């Protein structure tokens, strides 16, 4: 079953091309790394899929649903939580998620929060960048979604926690759900991924299975770095 199908997607803003003729199909249950340099269009692609960016051309279907509003029910995407003031507690944010997402699982949230060493009485303003990112990951995986979109989720998380979280994500994610992790650093997510999608020059340059890459190259990072050799 297809979790995501994108056909001829183009997205321009003012005079700038952000995505051009993107075609991409992801099967259900896969863990996919969405890689590319800064500004390649990874975040914009996720925003288009999630219905947050508008005025694009082409087709986007999530679990067979093309309607922008309706496909949101299948997606859990990382969010900066900018709608909440620093004075709000973690439990307030959880209350909001509980109210607006019917697939929010309280037990899962409590478990992940404990795993992340976070207390639900802590205020958002007292959290460090890394702790806030852990909370965002906890909120995303507390939902039983079909498609998880994680946009550079580990940039502020310390190396030890990052490894633990990456391993645990496999347990938190429902088996049939697809997980897309966008990052420009591959080394830590490489061991768990099934597929790699490389975005370059505003389009999908390569989509390959991780197993194939591992068989042909020393590592996924080596394969990825090969696309940027000779570039500044």
């Amino acid at each position, binding site marked *: 079953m297809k979790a995501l199908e994108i056909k001829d997607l183009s997205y321009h*803003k*003012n*005079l700038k091309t952000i995505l051009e003729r993107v075609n991409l199909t992801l099967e259900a249950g896969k863990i996919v790394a969405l890689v590319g340099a800064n500004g390649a269009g990874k975040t914009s692609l996720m*925003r288009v899929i999630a219905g*947050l960016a*508008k005025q694009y051309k082409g087709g986007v279907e999530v679990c067979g649903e093309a309607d922008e*509003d309706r496909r949101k029910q299948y*997606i859990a995407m990382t*969010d900066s939580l900018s709608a909440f003031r620093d004075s709000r507690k973690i439990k307030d944010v959880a209350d909001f998620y509980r*109210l607006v997402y019917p697939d929010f699982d309280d037990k899962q949230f409590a478990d992940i929060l404990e795993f992340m060493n976070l207390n639900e009485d802590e205020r958002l303003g007292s959290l460090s960048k890394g702790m806030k990112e852990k909370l965002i990951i906890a909120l995303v995986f507390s939902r039983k979604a079909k498609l998880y979109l994680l946009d550079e989720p580990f940039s502020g998380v310390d190396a030890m926690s990052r490894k633990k979280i990456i391993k645990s994500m496999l347990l938190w994610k429902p088996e049939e759900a697809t997980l897309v992790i966008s990052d420009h650093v591959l080394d830590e997510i490489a061991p768990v991924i099934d597929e790699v999608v490389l975005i370059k020059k505003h389009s999908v340059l390569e989509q390959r299975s991780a197993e194939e890459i591992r068989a042909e190259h020393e590592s996924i990072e080596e394969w990825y770095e090969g696309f940027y050799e000779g570039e500044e």
Partner: protein
Amino acid sequence: MIGFKQTFAAMFKEKSRTTWLSLGIEAVFILLVSLYFDIRYGFGSDSAGVGIGISAMVIFCMCIWYQIDVIMAAYRINRSQTWRQVPVTAGNFLTANVLTGLVTAVIFALANLLIFVIVLLPFIFGGEMRIDSQAVATFQPYVSSIISWGLYMALFALVSFISGICFWLLITESASVLGDFLPLKGRTSKFAKAVILLALLALLSWGSSSILGAVIRMVSNFGFDFNFVIDNTGLHTSHTDLGLPVISWLYMLAQIVYVAVLWAAEYFVFKKGVEAKK
């Protein structure tokens, strides 16, 4: 997918925090000011009225500020990535956003009325309360007419408030959508946004002012003129009243149609063009 009720409940929960916080701060400030003037000058003196004047000014300013805040909150929610990820249809989202703004504004206005009544109580009862029998006798026949006018004006204010939210959402969002997607860059894009904003403001203001102007003319010409006069001797009334004319309901209808047009235009802009901010 969630429905209108859940979306409304979630938005109301978030927005009402500001309402209660603002009301709490305002109420404490107003009561302290009134108490100060009441204790210093006595409840029955003319100088005690200074406290009421200050309270009325504070309430007026707070109501204006709150109206602006309601519109800003609606705009922030429409542009918020957190909110825009919520699985709800655009129509339900927008309606819930506008109506929660209205409901919190009504709560704010009613609470302010209550605060003002509380502030007035010692002043009224501290002075010699006199409503002469002749005033009461002439007041009686007009009670039902006053109720009709009161209901009409309250209803018109509610519809106008909705039109105000839709109006500002439409012009600010249209300007940013057109500015974002026009083939322009940098300063030219900002300039284009400003021009579009001004053009829309002029065009839609014309629509609002035509209806509101007509209603104001109707009110002043057809004769709702009922005054309460409060001084240190108590409450007095004066009035001339000619009842609620049929045309007033036509103006109400015009305002409702205007709101519907604004809402539909805003829905189109929101659904097709308004992006969530990163």
